[in-house]
């Protein structure tokens, strides 16, 4: 089982949430007295049982996060969303189901077109959506009440690693005193500590500009960015509503006492 987990990790070495998730999965599953059982079969079935429970827990996590964030979505608010995160979508879905009146600004999310996908989904929920190009964030920040993003990974300092563009939005929001909320499950907590953007393993991906680019022109192809904790207001996780500094507390307890 350990081998298979390692296989998952090596499949996409750039995915932080996968790494973190696998790590935590291993810890969760092996942290049981089942391994002391004499009978191999019973130990194995116990491990499988815990593994399945882990899967349930992560989907339950999204529901918990959605529930916790309902309080911050008030009547008539405007939410700016960046990237396509299932957790954030769940949050907005729950709010819509609770008959709250709010509207959503979606950034386009080039080149992944995350904004287009998200606006599709939200339109199905009858939530008023407005699409912006990525550069229009500062222009509309005055009208925005809060920013909601997901996270690929939550690092020890309390910062997050997310799709390219998140840091800019957080910076603008911070300078205009708008809260930035992050919705992330606890298995995304990783034991990384980047001090600046270069500290992370680069995740490069091809970008299509639609027109041919001369070969002498370099293209910045990084797919993700680190947002430091001072620009984040709160993290909604299945462990509760946390401030960025508590993330390290959780990680210490998680990794120290097992």
């Amino acid at each position, binding site marked *: 089982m350990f081998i298979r987990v390692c296989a998952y990790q090596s499949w996409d070495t750039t995915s932080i949430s996968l790494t973190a998730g696998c790590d*935590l*999965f291993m*810890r*969760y599953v092996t*942290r*049981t007295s089942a391994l002391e059982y004499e009978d191999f079969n019973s130990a194995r079935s116990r491990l499988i049982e815990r593994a399945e429970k*882990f899967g349930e*827990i992560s989907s*339950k*996590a999204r529901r*918990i996060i959605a529930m916790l964030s309902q309080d911050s979505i008030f009547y008539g608010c405007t939410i700016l969303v960046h990237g396509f995160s299932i957790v954030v979508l769940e949050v907005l879905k729950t709010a819509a189901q609770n008959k709250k009146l709010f509207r959503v600004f979606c950034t386009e999310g080039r080149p992944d077109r995350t904004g287009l996908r998200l606006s599709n989904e939200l339109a199905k929920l009858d939530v008023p959506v407005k699409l912006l190009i990525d550069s229009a964030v500062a222009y509309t920040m005055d009208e925005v009440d809060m920013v909601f993003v997901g996270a690929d990974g939550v690092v*020890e*300092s*309390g910062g997050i690693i997310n799709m390219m563009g998140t840091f800019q939005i957080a910076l603008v929001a911070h300078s205009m005193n708008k809260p930035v909320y992050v919705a992330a499950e*606890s*298995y995304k907590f990783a*034991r990384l*500590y980047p*001090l*600046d953007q270069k500290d992370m393993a680069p995740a490069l991906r091809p970008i299509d500009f639609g027109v041919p680019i001369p070969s002498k022109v370099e293209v910045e192809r990084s797919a993700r960015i680190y947002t430091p*904790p001072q620009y984040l207001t709160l993290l909604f996780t*299945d*462990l*509760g509503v946390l401030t960025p*500094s508590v993330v*390290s*507390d*959780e990680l*210490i*307890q*998680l*990794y*120290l*006492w*097992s």
Partner: protein
Amino acid sequence: MDSRRASRTVSDPKIRQVGFFAPPPDRSFSGPPDPISTSTPNPATTTTAANSPSSPPISDLSPTGNSLPPVMIPPPRHSSDTTHRLVPSPLRRDTLSLTVGSNNNNNNINISSSPSGGFDLTAVKASSVPASGLTTVSVLKTLPPGFTETIVEKVGGSVEMQNDLPANSKPLKERTSKAERRALQEAQRAAKAAAKAEGSKLPATTSGAAASANVKPAKATKPSSQKNDSATVASSEKKGGDRPPEKDRKKDAPHPRMQYDDKSRVEKAKRRAVVKQTEARNRVELFRHLPQYEHGTQLPDLESKFFQLDPVHPVVYKVGLQYISGDISGGNARCIAMLQAFQEAIKDYSTPDEKTVTRDLTAKINSYVSFLNECRPLSISMGNAIRFLKNRIAKLPLTLSESEAKAFLQSDIEQFINEKIILADKWTLAQSLRGNFYFVVYSRVGTACVAMVAHEFRVPVLVCCEAYKFHERVQLDSICSNELGDPDAISKVPGREDINYLDGCTNSENLQLLNLIYDATPSDYVSMIVTDYGMVPPTSVPVIVREYCRDQVWI
């Protein structure tokens, strides 16, 4: 009794905990982290308070088990104290070790405690170990007279602070001669008059003075009569409704550590000191609350006393001398040297009859610690190491034989040194670390400047530090607690002899040289701390302090 003892230690301003310590979150409802943080209960610590006097301070640090609110006004402790005070001279004279001096040394530190926070706990512990302190009456005949004086005065001082005097009263009145009784009465009368005349501060000093007046017949019964003296003095005060001065000061004092600008306390500390501190010349006014730097003049003096000082083990003495001369410097080196010296001392230690290993050994360690503190103020790491050692001593199962206990302790110390210091010592920058919500890096002077500039230029600042140096003490700036170094050191530039503008300026009235050894760097300038637990953000220092001290696990 236990609750009172616990309440006293909680309310003691030296180790007051302000703020909330929530129990670890109950994660039963979700998540991968669920199996991990079951809040391990700390009834163990509070119940062992009954058995071992050294655990109440530990229970203060493990807040989950502490049922008392963080800041508490202590209830007046009249009843038990008066009963104890009225019992004269509760001494047992069946042992011949010199821990009287040692324990009292430590009690003095209780009044005027050392700069390091960790040591405060040891002080508190010592004072709640009355039995060993009072029950060992030294054979003073063998000591040089000068030393007798200090011991006797210490005894006088100690009784003031004893909260719970043991009820094992074998009144020694029948053994005191008439002359001594007369002297005793005179002393009492003088003390009473002094108390009425000059208020609460003086009875300690007058009892000390009375004690010194009675020094000449240096017999084993001396301490008993001194105890009588101060006991009755204290009891008379009690009747008057005043508390003994040290207790008042302890409770009301905003400064938990020895304030060197408080004349009476300095006097008292001087009288008790083994290491004679010379008067510093030309002290800077703002920094008079710090221990002043004494040029290493006492080195030859102490060297000559090497073979005369029974209470201090030779190895500990040697380490102290090395501190003074600067041969050993640096937090880790000092800590390792100290622990190894303690290992030696434990090896040579033999339990006196009718005493428990834990109490007596703890008292001995206290005496060594106070001696080392006089040589050079303890660092944070040393405070933590001492706390660890005392914790281990306290946890020795009572059924162990003496040699087993010694071997056990020695291996513990060895393990501590290896794990905590050497292994974590792969990288060392900071001297010591103190943590609270406003956390601060306390290291060699100059660090704060560098960190501030680096922060401005967006250069990350990393601090490398072993976790055992983390401390829950709060320090807002570099002035409230520090060490002073040799002022002449800053007037010379090494390697450039021609820069001598400041030669001979130490005696001028308008110029005072100040050489601080440590400074405090605020947490905003620190990007990350590297510890043996991994990389943590500065905001997580209280978490590590909390985890580290929980259950005395000392992982």
